[in-house]
């Protein structure tokens, strides 16, 4: 479905939305279901329709609440039964500059303008506070775009009586609010308008005829931008950028032109373009994107190319380098296996349209942007929103290091006499403790990102996690694993609801990056010990099958649980009697 790729095909999305929706819904997708309230200061119908398409495209099946026309503030502040009983997972407040009740007048003073600004901001922040209080959910708020005229000309942006100035200040206050509230996100409407072209974007015909605050053609872009935030919150971001080399990371063909012949660096304009692109990719790495190489080349030539003094990206920046003469779809699968990640978390960039098509045909899950001209590369990747940042956990910042440490572990394993010797030689230490505020973000992220070792596949937002932590009814533990090669960070989460002397598990998951290290044993040992202290006699485990979690179907049996019941859909229930539980004592030192 090319219509969703940047630059989105608005015409098709608007005209054929009914057919496109049908097609998306007919796919066999492991949908994430979410309830989304759209509170508008203008007409929102088309925005909701398009948002639905983009969410479906990202594997999220939404149900919507839509405020009555322009009732965003009333709905949020005073509430209404329908919205209250809707229990939104996400509230999207779609307002624009026309929803600002009053602007400074040219005859007014600076002080009056400041007072008005304060009052206007409070009107909005009261609303956000109210929503947060009531729903503890993710809130997305548009910033304000600029009016398409400037009464004071150029001074409109610098004079405190100018509307542009007023809006710029209001936006700054909004950003500070967002910075202080982790589940609150700004949708950058102002950027979207500028990127589209303010004059066309704010064609007043759409306001006066239909009360849309933007032109119809701009709606799919707005919807994509909001959907990018939502899919990022629910862990649907891409994780890996798989790069071709020749004419993708540098100009020319290293095998033919030699290292000194490739175009990279300040000497020629083309070289500058590639240098800037490499710099951008390096920055993507710094926000947690895993870089890999998939190139048709002799390996030595590829490495020599990357060691060119003007290459910002060095071989060490990539967590996997496949430079060979295999077909690229085979390399794709090899890299995915190596990293233990699904191919649907991959983005593939290649200047060669045939290679792009091969990957598209071989695997529909991989995103393959149309890398046409090197001067467009950054924009193509940037606007596609593959790696939309909604939270940067410490894990994101050091992800590449962790994967590299993994590669060193694999080498150690190859050298070790037995697997047990290998585990001992890792000198592992686990921290297994109740949920803590500093890890909420990572814990929520794990519930959304873990697909394979995930027994219940319950997806949680940060506020859901905070709710469990605060509740007396829940027993929750996170597990962090370190070894001599480095810190794996938080890799496992278990959480259960206490019912009398039974603990009913709602979350049980582990990151695949620490499979077969004994971490699952360490988690159960600790869970059993903590549960017993609380007077719990039995742990009840639940397994709900998903297309990806087949590897843990028999998990409870392996851990010593007794089978209780199962149904036709494959859901199973298991029980562990704590009276005769014997700790599994894996070779991990446990800190509580």
């Amino acid at each position: 479905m090319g219509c969703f790729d940047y630059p989105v095909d608005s015409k098709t999305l608007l005209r054929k939305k009914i057919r496109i929706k049908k097609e998306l819904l007919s796919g066999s997708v492991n949908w994430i279901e979410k309830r989304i309230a759209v509170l508008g200061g203008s007409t929102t119908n088309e925005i909701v329709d398009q948002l639905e398409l983009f969410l479906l495209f990202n594997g999220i099946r939404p149900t919507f609440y839509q405020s009555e026309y322009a009732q965003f503030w009333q709905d949020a502040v005073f509430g209404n039964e329908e919205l209250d009983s809707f229990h939104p997972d996400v509230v999207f407040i779609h307002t624009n500059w026309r929803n600002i009740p009053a602007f400074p007048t040219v005859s007014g003073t600076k002080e009056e303008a400041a007072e008005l600004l304060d009052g206007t901001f409070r009107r909005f922040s009261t609303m956000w506070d109210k929503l947060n209080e009531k729903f503890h959910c993710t809130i997305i708020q548009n910033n304000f775009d600029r009016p398409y005229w400037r009464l004071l000309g150029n001074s409109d942006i610098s004079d405190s009586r100018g509307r542009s100035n007023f809006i710029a200040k209001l936006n700054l206050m909004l950003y500070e609010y967002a910075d202080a509230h982790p589940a609150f996100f700004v949708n950058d409407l102002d950027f979207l308008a500028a990127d589209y072209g303010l004059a066309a974007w704010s064609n007043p015909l759409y306001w006066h005829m239909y009360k849309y605050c933007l032109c119809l053609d701009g709606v799919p872009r707005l919807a994509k931008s909001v959907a990018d935030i939502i899919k990022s919150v629910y862990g649907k971001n891409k994780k890996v950028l798989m790069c071709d080399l020749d004419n993708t990371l540098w100009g020319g063909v290293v095998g033919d032109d030699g290292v000194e012949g490739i175009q990279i660096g300040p000497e020629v304009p083309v070289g500058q373009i590639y240098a800037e692109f490499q710099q951008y990719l390096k920055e993507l790495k710094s926000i947690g994107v895993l870089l890999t190489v998939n190139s048709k080349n002799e390996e030595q030539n590829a490495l020599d190319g990357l060691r060119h003094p003007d290459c910002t990206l060095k071989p060490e920046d990539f967590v996997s380098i496949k430079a060979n003469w295999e077909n690229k779809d085979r390399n794709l699968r090899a890299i995915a296996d190596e990293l233990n990640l699904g191919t649907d978390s991959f983005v593939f960039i290649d200047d060669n349209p045939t290679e792009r098509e091969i990957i598209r045909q071989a695997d529909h899950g991989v995103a393959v942007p149309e890398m046409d001209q090197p001067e467009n590369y950054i924009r193509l990747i940037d606007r596609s929103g593959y790696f939309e940042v909604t939270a940067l956990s410490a894990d994101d910042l050091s992800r590449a290091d962790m994967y590299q440490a993994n590669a060193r572990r694999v080498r150690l394993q190859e050298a070790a006499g037995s697997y047990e010797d290998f585990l001992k030689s890792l000198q592992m230490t686990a921290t297994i403790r109740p949920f803590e505020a500093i890890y909420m973000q990572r814990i929520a992220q794990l519930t959304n990102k873990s697909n394979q070792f995930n027994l219940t596949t319950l997806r949680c937002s940060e506020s859901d996690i905070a709710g469990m932590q605060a509740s007396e009814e829940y027993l929750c533990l996170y597990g962090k694993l370190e070894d001599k090669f480095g810190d794996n960070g938080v890799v496992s989460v278990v959480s259960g609801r206490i019912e009398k002397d039974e603990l009913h598990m709602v979350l049980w998951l582990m990151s695949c990056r620490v499979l077969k290290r004994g971490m699952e044993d360490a988690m159960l040992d600790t869970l059993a010990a903590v549960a017993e202290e609380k007077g719990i006699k039995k742990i009840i485990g639940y397994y709900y099958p998903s297309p990806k979690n087949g590897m843990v179907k028999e998990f409870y049996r392996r851990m010593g649980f007794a089978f209780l019941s199962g149904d036709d859909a494959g859901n199973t229930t298991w029980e562990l009697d704590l009276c005769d539980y014997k700790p599994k004592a894996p070779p991990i030192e446990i800190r509580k």
Partner: protein
Amino acid sequence: MSREEIYERLNEVFRDVFGEDDITVNDETTAADIDGWDSLRHISLLAAVEDEFDIEFSMGQTVKMKNVGEMVDYIEEEAE
């Protein structure tokens, strides 16, 4: 462009916008004849027609048109 050609392309637009493969419109067709042709869908329809024939409706025209026939009149005038 002949009226016939316009209708051929216009029918495709209607089928896409309303998601029904068997819609056929004529001079007398109005919003009352087609399921789901409300004011909101009307906006999508006009945008799709503008795009299909590379024309633009002004505010005045969109309010004035009473049936599909009048829409086709306008397309005939504007499109080459």
